[in-house]
């Protein structure tokens, strides 16, 4: 019966992973092509495996990436890191990315070519959805990780799909972050259990960095995953040499979707999400002029090379506002090196920003935590009270250019006004007190 009806991208990828044709709504066992854990939870799951007295079944399919605690700054974390190092050897896990060759796991498995278009990735971290930017079906499974390590398979429900067709192209100054914010604002919480599939001529012109951020943000409306159905058609930078353009999976024309939406990218403007939740996106002008005390450009939703380039473009020849704390965190060591080669690190450090080692640190308040009266604007993933430190601090989420411009002026600022300084008076000499 299922053969008469076309299949979605998700049905096709899961059918291959299950070894038979699947129908939407079925609950089935699937074998992932890649499993990913990071240093903050890998020890927890390996302890369960050891308590059971079992071994990791397919260690060659598992990557362990150091990203949450680099450098590690707490006693429990150090115990975990020592345990992890021993247990990786014990279980024959060799795809290990230790500090120095590390990065935020979702970024690193893309940059290193571990996750491939059309593959199934099951991983422990909430923001695993990010990896869908290169056409992999990447689903976060959290508590089920230990069972999957032992059994080599995991259970899930074959989800419905919301297909989002992009048309047009982004205007200058509008970034992947803004597309992500617009989509989660549009969907509200209607995406629980569902996968977002991105298609259309506009999708083909979104580059890899933009795609990763868009897919990342889908988790904030509960989407099980998000996936692009075709590769980026533009020129791919050298650092993406390992990212395959082959193997993308597309839905059949007669596949059944829960919903179909068309978004014209050229209609989008820079957006901002204020506390307490990321899914209410407002025009940037809503909060323009609000004083901020800390700026953070990084996380799995905003530390790609395009984000650091956007920050450097705004910061070049300017200096951050007096008393401002500005942290820039390239998402992986490879991105850090690319930023060094392009001279971006020198630009932002000269502007007064502090560049931290690649990690998730500030996003969950592990590094540079916010105090009670802090107001932070960030490219972080979430902004609920307490996410980055004190529960009374305010967190605003916006694109990297907006964050960099706000660091310069000390207030929430539209980067286009800083860059267009002749008309708006926001150049480096007048920024203080502007």
């Amino acid at each position, binding site marked *: 019966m299922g053969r008469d009806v076309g299949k979605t991208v998700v049905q096709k990828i899961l059918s291959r992973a299950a070894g038979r044709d699947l129908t939407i709504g079925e609950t089935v*066992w699937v074998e992932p092509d890649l499993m990913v854990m990071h240093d903050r939870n890998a020890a927890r799951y390996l302890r369960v495996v050891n308590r059971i007295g079992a071994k990791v079944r397919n260690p060659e399919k598992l990557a362990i990436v150091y990203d949450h605690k680099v450098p590690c700054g707490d006693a429990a974390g150090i115990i975990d890191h020592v345990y992890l190092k021993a247990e990786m050897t014990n279980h024959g896990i060799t795809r290990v990315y230790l500090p120095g060759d590390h990065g935020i796991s979702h970024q690193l498995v893309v940059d290193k070519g571990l996750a491939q278009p059309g593959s199934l990735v099951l991983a422990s971290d909430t923001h695993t959805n990010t990896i869908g930017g290169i056409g992999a079906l990447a689903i976060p499974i959290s508590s089920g990780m230990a*069972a999957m390590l032992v059994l080599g398979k995991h259970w899930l429900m074959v989800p419905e799909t919301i297909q989002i067709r992009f048309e047009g192209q982004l205007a200058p100054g509008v970034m992947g972050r803004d597309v992500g914010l617009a989509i989660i604002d549009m969907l509200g*919480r209607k995406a629980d*259990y569902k996968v977002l599939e991105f298609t259309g001529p506009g999708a083909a012109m979104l580059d890899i960095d933009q795609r990763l951020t868009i897919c990342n943000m889908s988790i904030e409306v509960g989407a099980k995953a998000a996936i692009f159905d075709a590769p980026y058609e533009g020129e791919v930078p050298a650092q993406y040499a390992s990212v395959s353009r082959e193997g993308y999976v597309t839905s059949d024309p007669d596949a059944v979707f829960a919903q179909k939406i068309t978004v014209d990218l050229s209609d989008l403007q820079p957006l901002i999400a204020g506390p307490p939740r990321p899914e209410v996106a407002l025009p940037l002008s809503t909060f323009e002029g609000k004083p901020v005390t800390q700026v953070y450009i990084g996380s799995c939703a905003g530390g790609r090379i395009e984000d650091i380039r956007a920050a450097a473009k705004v910061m070049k020849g300017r200096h951050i506002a007096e008393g401002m704390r500005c942290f820039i965190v390239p998402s992986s060591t490879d991105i850090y090196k690319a930023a060094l080669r392009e001279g971006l690190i020198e630009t932002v450090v000269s502007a007064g920003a502090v560049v931290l080692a690649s990690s998730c640190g500030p996003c969950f308040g592990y590094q540079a935590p916010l105090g009670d009266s802090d107001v932070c604007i960030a490219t972080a993933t979430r902004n609920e009270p307490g996410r980055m430190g004190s529960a009374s601090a305010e967190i605003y989420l916006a694109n990297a250019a907006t964050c960099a411009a706000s660091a310069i002026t000390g207030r929430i600022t539209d980067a286009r006004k800083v860059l267009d300084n002749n008309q708006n008076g926001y150049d480096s000499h007048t920024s203080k007190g502007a």
Partner: protein
Amino acid sequence: MITSGRSWIFGDDIAFDGEMMPVRFQKSDTLDPSKLVPFLMTGIDPNFPNKIKSGDTIVAGEAFGSGNFHPHALLAMKHAGVYVVAESVTRGFYRMAVAVGLWFIPFCPGVTRLAKDGEAMSVNYLTGEVKTATGSARYEPLPAIPREIIEAGSEEQFVIKKLKEEQPHG
């Protein structure tokens, strides 16, 4: 699995953090359920832990288990013998409940209107049948895989069972 007790009705969008369990537990490693039961659902009803008995049912509205998900409240429910029927549960709740081995029926449209707070309710989690003093309804029970995991006691117990089954006989 059939339970018989009283029903306790909750609204929509009940969050793991702060509503099902005080936020402070989420950042600690306390997973001893007997220590967690006295705080269960106290973000909504401070007297809830004193009212419940084994066999009772939490009857929840839409999207039960919103926000970041954590096992604490679900371990407490399981320990207290109080299971869940809901108009709908979030994916986070669904997966976490299966992982800890908590019985539930995930999608029961109309169940909050069927039940009355504090009154008798029996639930058959294998057939999906829910009965009150004044009415009954049948919902879609859990599919075979999650049911088998919960029957084993938890995801961890299920894995142990599967490994034993894989051992060569003799």
